[in-house]
């Protein structure tokens, strides 16, 4: 399977994502933001970081960058797009995903392990995943997902909520919400479920020696679903 990771000036999880994709068998290419064409890909990843310094608003300038039109075209034609952290913020800025990511409720950057409950596994990202509570890692200052009531209803009606922050045993409650996100939302899909944006970083959880291994489950499963 071929994947491409877009590098914006200020991206800083691009290498980590490259390492993770390759570890689980993707043939990955790095794509510079100033290019206008994407290489042939089965998956496009917008990585974490501080694209363009996150000036103006997180992800907003990246949402207008040269490569992004190709990403939008790719997504609209049904291609698989994954945005992690800053990548999620960029996807909301392009309009491919609904809502916004505000500053964390406690107005502090948060770096720690959290748990998410997978809400919808009828899609390429989570289909066949054999664990519905995953331990992942967050590292962000603006991960507090927000959308209007109408948007929320539409997300719920169309089963577009990908994952909720939860406790280790899968309870979705205030205590397990790290950043104040509405309804504990950690990640969402577009209507067709070919675009996933989420704040947690699976690529930091791919090795027993790191913070955990549940990221491996995510990538292994994703690759299998694409084959």
């Amino acid at each position, binding site marked *: 399977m071929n994947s491409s990771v877009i590098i914006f*000036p*200020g991206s*800083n*999880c691009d*290498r*980590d994502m490259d*390492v*993770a994709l390759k570890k689980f068998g993707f043939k990955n290419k790095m794509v510079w933001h*100033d290019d206008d064409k994407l290489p042939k890909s089965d998956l496009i990843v917008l990585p*974490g*970081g*501080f694209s*363009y*310094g*996150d*000036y103006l608003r997180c992800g907003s300038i990246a949402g207008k960058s040269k490569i992004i039109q190709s990403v939008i075209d790719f997504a609209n034609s049904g291609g698989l797009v994954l945005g992690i952290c800053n990548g999620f913020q960029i996807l909301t800025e392009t309009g491919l995903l609904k809502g916004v990511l505000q500053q964390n409720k406690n107005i*502090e*950057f*948060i*770096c*720690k392990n959290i748990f998410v409950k997978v809400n919808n596994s009828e899609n390429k990202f989570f289909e066949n995943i054999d664990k519905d509570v995953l331990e992942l*890692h967050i*590292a962000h*200052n603006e991960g507090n997902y927000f959308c209007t009531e109408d948007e929320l209803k539409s997300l719920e009606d169309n089963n577009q909520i990908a994952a909720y922050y939860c406790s280790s045993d899968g309870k979705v409650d205030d205590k397990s919400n790290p950043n104040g996100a509405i309804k504990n939302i950690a990640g969402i899909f577009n209507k067709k479920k070919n675009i996933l944006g989420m704040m947690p*970083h699976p*690529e*930091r959880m*791919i*090795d027993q*020696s*790191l*913070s955990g291994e549940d990221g491996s489950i995510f990538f292994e499963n994703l690759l299998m679903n694409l084959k």
Partner: protein
Amino acid sequence: MEVNEKIAVDHGLKPDEYKKICDLLKRVPNLTELGIFSAMWNEHCSYKSSRLHLKKLNTKGKKVIQGPGENAGVIDIGDDDAIVFKIESHNHPSFIEPYQGAATGVGGIMRDVFTMGARPIANLNSIHFGSTQHKKTKNLLRGVVKGIGGYGNCIGVPTIAGQTCFDQSYNGNILVNAMTLGLVNKNKIFYSKAAGINKPVIYVGSKTGRDGIHGASMASAIFDDKIEEKKPTVQVGDPFTEKLLLEACLELMSDKSIIAIQDMGAAGLTSSSIEMASKGNLGIELHLDKVPCREEKMTPYEIMLSESQERMLIVLENGKEDSAKKIFDKWNLDFAVIGKTNNTKNIELYFEKEKVANVPIKFLANEAPMYDRPWKKTKLPQKIKFSNSDFKKLKFSDVIKKMISNPNICSKQWIWEQYDHTVMGDTIQKPGGDAGVVRVHGTKKAVASSVDSSATYCHAHPFTGGKQVVCEAWRNLVSVGAEPIAITNCLNFGNPEKKENMGEFVECIDGINEASKYLNFPVVSGNVSFYNETKDKGIKPTPTIGGVGLIKDYKNLMTMKFKSKENLVLVIGKTEGNLDQSIFANVILDEKKGPPPEINLFNEKNNGETVLKLIKEKLALSVHDVSLGGIMIGALKMCIAGSKGIKFYKFKNLTNIYQYFFSEDQGRYIIEVDKNNLKKVENILKKNSVHFDLLGETTDKEIIINDGPTFTVDKVTEFYRSWLYKYMS
């Protein structure tokens, strides 16, 4: 403006220093030249009070590739890999403007490391604040933590370890010491020594503004009532530009275009150009109208003294200008040829076709003042005689609660959760361990690093304190299973013009040196921060030591968490029961006098090496060094980390339970051992003449103290973790 003595004094120069300048030049300098002299001759850049003593430091070792004198030190970790590292202070600016002060401190030290061709792989920091009761402490702590995080998180370099202390001696002068480790191929290290004449001098990075003018001079003076007015001397950081600069520089470094490179840190364009030329024994000619400026009508004086951040000066090979420019264009950074090297051995500045300064470089560098300041020895204080009545009034359970939630002992999770400590995907020991550990990307190796200071000990007896900090750094590396290799030091002191402060400095250095030599743990880089003094009140002497060590196979990483119940717990090293200068004596008994615990370097080395042997033979299941709070706090931290309990055995030979549990006798470790391996462990310890005691055995959850109270690990964890959150909320 005509320069005179008064203007020179306003620039921070002493009248006799100004006279020396005139004598050297055989004329009165113009204002630009005076500005350059004042920048090069201040304490921060010239090390005029410390140079004489720094020369004594042990800086050599088999694994040292580069010692002090470059942007950072470099050590060999095998297979052509080398680690570049250094610690640096940003104390004065952080007190005036905590966010920007701390942020630019982190930015500055990272530039020092990637200037040498290394990709930064880990950040650490040591921060000291005033009393938790002091009205400024909370805001300063919040601002500094946000600043450190704001910069490091954006660049995408993990902050893997640190140290936070509170003591009223920092009420008027906080300390922010930032350390960075970078990874480089040992055959591709870049230095700041210029070579060859008529080589283009290139300016890259951010544009120059009026920020930070005289920042280095500000950091070379004591604070008074008017420090708020000094805000404009604090630089403003832009981590995004630094990230671009990092990537652009590393890209340019992949070929052979660069002859010399130097970041523009303290004293900006002045010190960077002069240092490169001075090291190469060359002259340098700069055309200041070519310097990219972000403000209008900047004068040569302002351009030379600005401390705008995220800038580099490069001496390039001839003919490489176009290919180099392409790289900086790609990263959207300014690139300007602003001058060239020459053989005049002078710094010659031009502005709008006029020569505006011309000074022999040796006057600025080699001829800078060097002082042998008078200093006073500190006597070893008398030992305190604690009486039984001191202890009788205490309730053991209250003592434990008070100790584990003490600001200097409690968990610093509130701080390190605000730092991205996992980016780059190689952090295998997060903050909260004895040392942070990152893998050397793509290899089996891992690098461990920790930062330590012991101002209380250094204050009581600087020589012993200096030795102790080095030993503490050594122990922290040993505890994670790393072979200690080298250190960097950040020497934070009061006013060197006072002989007590100067004495603290001299004796701390002697102590550092003795331990560093004995442990073969050389100093490869560092910095000195004097004048940490406000209205005549100086800080406690605070040398901060950053240690670096190597774990050959990262799978052998050792941690402090108790692994399972019913294992034996041993204390390696002898417990004498000294409480003088311990945190127990200070906090519980309110006794602040007495000598610090003695350092026995033979035991220190022998115990450490033997613990490493036990780790290597896979006989130790967990390891933690005994430091602040003694055996009790050490063991409790191991319980908390592993969510296990401990049943302490009855202790022998000591007069009372407090001395046994809270003494801070040095050279000790706590280790967890499988019962079936006790014989093997005993044999190794005995064979190496290492003293040890059986401390107890691990339990499921209960912490049981003989003749004392019982706790659960969950309760102790709550005391340990909640204090700082409550304080900051």
